[in-house]
């Protein structure tokens, strides 16, 4: 579904991505692991055209999205949902309006149907009845879950999650993981999940990629990660398995 070839990106004098190659299989969940500041968010923003690469190609269903104009880009984005690391809710709108926003923009549903769908999605993320609240009245974790509901309300074919569970308690984390799994199992959604949390990653991933110093240093099925010979991956894993 998403194919990234030789992606380079620099900010000022600092080269963040130095030739990233990555393939996200249709209907599968791809987890990207890496330490803070390794360029995970930057990589994800390229997948949806929020950043333009200095070099390289990002192909979505075979189409190079770096070459699209504004209108073509809007078309491609209809296929996507994205959960931002900092939620990025519209702070001038209520929670309900945030989740309803994509529905009002892209469907012809009646106000009652919109309200019903919003309530349903908020229920899934454990926030039923929060429609009238403003984002500033919510905690960080609650905001993140509203962002999740907003990204999923149109039932996109591909969802990008930027650290969907960071900062959430273990129980809510488990729920979110379950949501990702369900979306992929029931709706055949293609997912890309950025994570620091190896446990959660192993749980939801079909494929795992590890990004380090601007390149993908490991790319394998989830269950093969433990056999990785790459020193950085071994170190990364040791911190987690060491604790068990």
């Amino acid at each position, binding site marked *: 579904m998403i194919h990234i070839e030789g992606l380079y990106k620099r900010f000022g004098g600092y080269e963040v991505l130095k030739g990233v190659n990555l393939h996200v299989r249709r209907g599968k969940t791809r987890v990207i692991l890496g330490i803070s500041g390794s360029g995970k968010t930057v990589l994800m923003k390229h997948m949806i*055209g929020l950043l333009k690469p200095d070099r390289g190609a990002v192909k979505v269903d075979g189409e190079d999205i770096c070459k699209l104009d504004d209108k073509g880009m809007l078309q491609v*984005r209809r296929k996507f949902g994205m959960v931002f690391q900092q939620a990025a809710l519209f702070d001038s709108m209520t929670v309900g309006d945030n989740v309803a926003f994509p529905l009002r*923009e892209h469907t012809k549903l009646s106000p009652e149907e919109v309200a019903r769908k919003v309530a349903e999605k908020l229920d899934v993320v454990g926030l039923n009845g929060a429609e009238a609240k403003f984002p500033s009245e919510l905690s960080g974790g609650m905001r993140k879950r509203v962002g999740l509901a907003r990204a999923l309300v149109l039932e996109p074919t591909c969802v990008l999650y930027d650290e969907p569970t960071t900062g959430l308690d273990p129980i809510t984390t488990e729920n979110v993981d379950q949501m990702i799994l369900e979306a992929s199992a029931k709706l055949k959604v293609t997912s890309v999940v950025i994570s620091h949390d190896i446990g959660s990653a192993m749980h939801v991933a079909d494929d795992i990629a590890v990004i380090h110093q601007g390149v993908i240093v490991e790319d394998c099925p989830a269950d093969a990660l433990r056999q990785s010979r790459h020193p950085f991956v071994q170190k990364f894993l040791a911190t987690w398995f060491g604790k068990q």
Partner: protein
Amino acid sequence: MNAVVAKLKGALEFAGQATLDFFTEVGLVTQFMARILSASVRPPYRVKLLLQQAEFVGVGSVFIILLTGFFTGAVFTLQSAQAFQRVGMESMVGSTVLLAVARELAPVLTSLMVTGRVGSAMATELGTMRVTEQIDAMEVLAVDPINYLVVPRVFASAVMVPCLSLIFLVVATVGSFIVGVSVLGIDEGAFMARIEWFLDPFDFTHGLYKAIVFGVVLSLIGCYKGYNAAGGARGVGMATTQAVVIGSISIFVLDYVLTSILLIGAPD
């Protein structure tokens, strides 16, 4: 000798860079304007957002325009009455003040007040949305932020600034009349007659054309600065300041340019 050459070279380089930066910026604003134009003819047409913005720009500014308009008319009457008294032509006071207000003061002062109140707010709002990734989020949701956020603001401003300018003109007339006739005791009949005799419809359209252009420019700059803000709270603060400073200066410069163009077509 070498030191002088080096200094000269440095100065030239600086001037060159500044000129280059200026034209790059003008190019970018032009590009931004082209995007606004193309987004404004493409559906969806956001009538509700347009009305919301019109309310914010227009209705929200009425009070300050009433105040500034009234006192501008009043103080100009006070000043020019004293000047005209020296040549014994007090009856010309009303018409002179109105001419200045209709052609210059109403559009320029209205636009400056609106830049301070609305241009800055646009830069802050869009800037905050930019640095908190709300604009990115909108793009990801396949909604064109130019169409959703910028077009309604620019059009609302293009319509409401001329309306405000007209209100300014009306209250300035009232202020002028009160000071001229009631305070200074100029003959009411002469005051009014001179206005009718002296003023031309052109004087009013002249001011309105300017107000439309200023309305577009101040909102364009406010939105441009906010839309391209970067670097957290400091970046938003800078965008706001620049929106007001560049907006105000542009109004003065454009005022001169527009006046010279409009006066070519003026009836004499």
